[in-house]
């Protein structure tokens, strides 16, 4: 009975895991569809090599629209990530030096973008930027994305700071190190993993953000999510499956790399 219950439990968890991941894997074979449909052709099911094609990969790599979208998404994320990482890391370092009340107040303000539904921020920022002529501009999208992702950086850097030992800084100061050099030689290396994961999260979130972009982007500011949005909503072309497959592949590689780095850091720590 006990073993049966155990088996049942792990079967259930296997099904939940399948629910989480299988949908992402189904799009991979379908992206090699030679026909403009979202389903398997008979030739594909018979694993006939002639029934598979790179047509949609060719389409997205050759299409001017997709290239523009990729360039826009990367440019936006390339400005948002350092800006949000800098502002967020500074705030995380500063928060712990504030008196309790001021710290709580600042934390509430900083956390507010995490609570408010994005659609409301998109609505508000559209009203806010319209009189300034900043809708349909990169500036507007970058401002909004930075406000949206900087709080995540504060959270990730803040959580590495909770394990940071302040006595190290006092030791550095006793040994004659000025505060700034103590920061670069002591604090920064220790909180670097938090900064890195905050920056990574900022990049991915900005790259993946669709709602703000829907409200603020004009035709020239179309991003990858918007391109996929119209691919799903209006055209329903397997080109979005090719793009989606590439994105799943990218995320998988990033995650595997992050896990390997974390593991090697752990084993290095254990050796020491």
């Amino acid at each position: 009975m006990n073993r049966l219950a155990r088996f049942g439990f792990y079967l259930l968890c296997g099904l939940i895991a399948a629910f989480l991941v299988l949908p992402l894997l189904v799009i991979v074979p379908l992206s090699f569809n030679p026909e403009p449909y979202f389903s398997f052709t008979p030739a594909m099911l018979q694993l006939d090599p002639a029934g598979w094609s790179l047509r949609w990969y060719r389409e997205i790599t050759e299409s001017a629209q997709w290239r523009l979208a990729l360039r826009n998404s990367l440019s936006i994320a390339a400005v948002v990530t350092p800006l949000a990482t800098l502002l967020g890391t500074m705030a995380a370092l500063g928060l712990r030096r504030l008196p309790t009340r001021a710290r709580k107040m600042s934390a509430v303000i900083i956390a507010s973008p995490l609570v408010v539904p994005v659609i409301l921020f998109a609505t508000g920022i559209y009203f806010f930027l319209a009189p300034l002529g900043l809708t349909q501009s990169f500036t507007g999208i970058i401002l909004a994305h930075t406000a949206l992702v900087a709080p995540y950086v504060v959270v990730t850097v803040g959580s590495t700071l909770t394990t940071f030992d302040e006595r190290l800084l006092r030791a550095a100061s006793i040994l004659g190190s000025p505060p700034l050099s103590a920061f670069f030689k002591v604090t920064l290396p220790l909180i670097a993993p938090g900064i890195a994961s905050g920056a990574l999260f900022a990049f991915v979130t900005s790259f993946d953000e669709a709602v703000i972009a829907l409200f603020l982007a004009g035709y020239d500011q179309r991003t990858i999510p918007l391109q996929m949005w119209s691919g799903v909503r209006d055209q329903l072309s397997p080109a979005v499956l090719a793009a989606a497959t590439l994105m799943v592949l990218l995320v998988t590689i990033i995650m595997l790399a992050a896990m390997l780095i974390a593991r090697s850091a752990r084993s290095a720590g254990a050796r020491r």
Partner: protein
Amino acid sequence: MNAASPSRAGWALVLPLVAFIVIAFLAPIATMFLRSVHDPEIADLMPRTRQALAQWDGAGVRQVAFDAVSADLQEANATNQIGRLAQRLNREQNGLRRLIDVTARQLQQNPDTQLARIDPGWSDPDLWRILARVTSPWTGRHLLNALDVTVTADGALVRQEEARRLYVDLFLRTAWVAALVTLICALLGYPYAYAMAASGPSLRTLLLFLVLLPFWTSLLVRATAWIVLLQRRGVINEGLLAMGLISETGRLDLIYNMTGTIIVMVHVLLPFFVLPLYSVMAGLPTSYVRASASLGAHPLRTFARVYLPLTYPGVAAGGLLVFILSLGYYVTPALVGGRTGQLISNQIAFHMQRSLNWGLAAALGTLLLLAVLLLALTLPRLAERGGLRA
């Protein structure tokens, strides 16, 4: 280091982000609040009428008011704004579009015609009460509209006629969907988080990877994947058909309706439930469970009386997160919800982008935000009082 300097350095580090968020985030949110009660569009298009009616006592319409409307309509004619004005007024009171169009056309031919002679509608005192109300830039009508309440000509509040009641139902439906999604996430997420906490390092890494992969994958990619699976000619329907479980006419409608919205929302939000719960479970000492077992309790009893209560904080944190995120969900219902699977956020976007009824969009947004803030502030406290924060 003296006592003052750490806090001054602290301010120097924190203020840039705080100032940035106040300007780039809180100010836009405040603008949305303002928009829900401040709508100067009609007032700007009818400045003379607004002035003439601002101090009006509601008893008898004086000639100044007729002249003001006449002058405003002629100016709107001249600046090509008459269509917009007619549309805006019609939104406040059905039938005004026709009245404005007819009157404006007559005035164009003969600017000195008396309004009452163009259309008897102008002699109706109720019309003037409506005009007095809608030419005021400060208004509660958008918020009332968002609650399916309308104002009669004499200023009384009544519920919208049956066919035009949309939003209260939609708010309730959104709350219901959010609750259902949270419940399903709890039922699926609890055993999964437990399996992560209870298994050895390599299985745990695998399970963590499987929950983080969809978490990090683009929302658009996930919506696409589910469309591929669930649509009428999708993988699931074709599979069931091939196995002979359904017939060609019996294909299941799994997407572009509320079913699709709920399935995909559960998929998107499940990691938000699993991860906080797992971090609570991973931090629990195993000694309580072992103590309970060694004192002879049945495993189920141990689970219900010892383990489950210890994990309540994680359940509460994950549940609250999922519930609040679902209340404001937009992307998923927009892509897979079809006509019947839309939530309140989609209505806000509709009024922002399609109907261009920005006041109503702002009012719906204000109500949604108040609901979210209320929940975010009260639920954790209720949970605390109920002993959920062990």
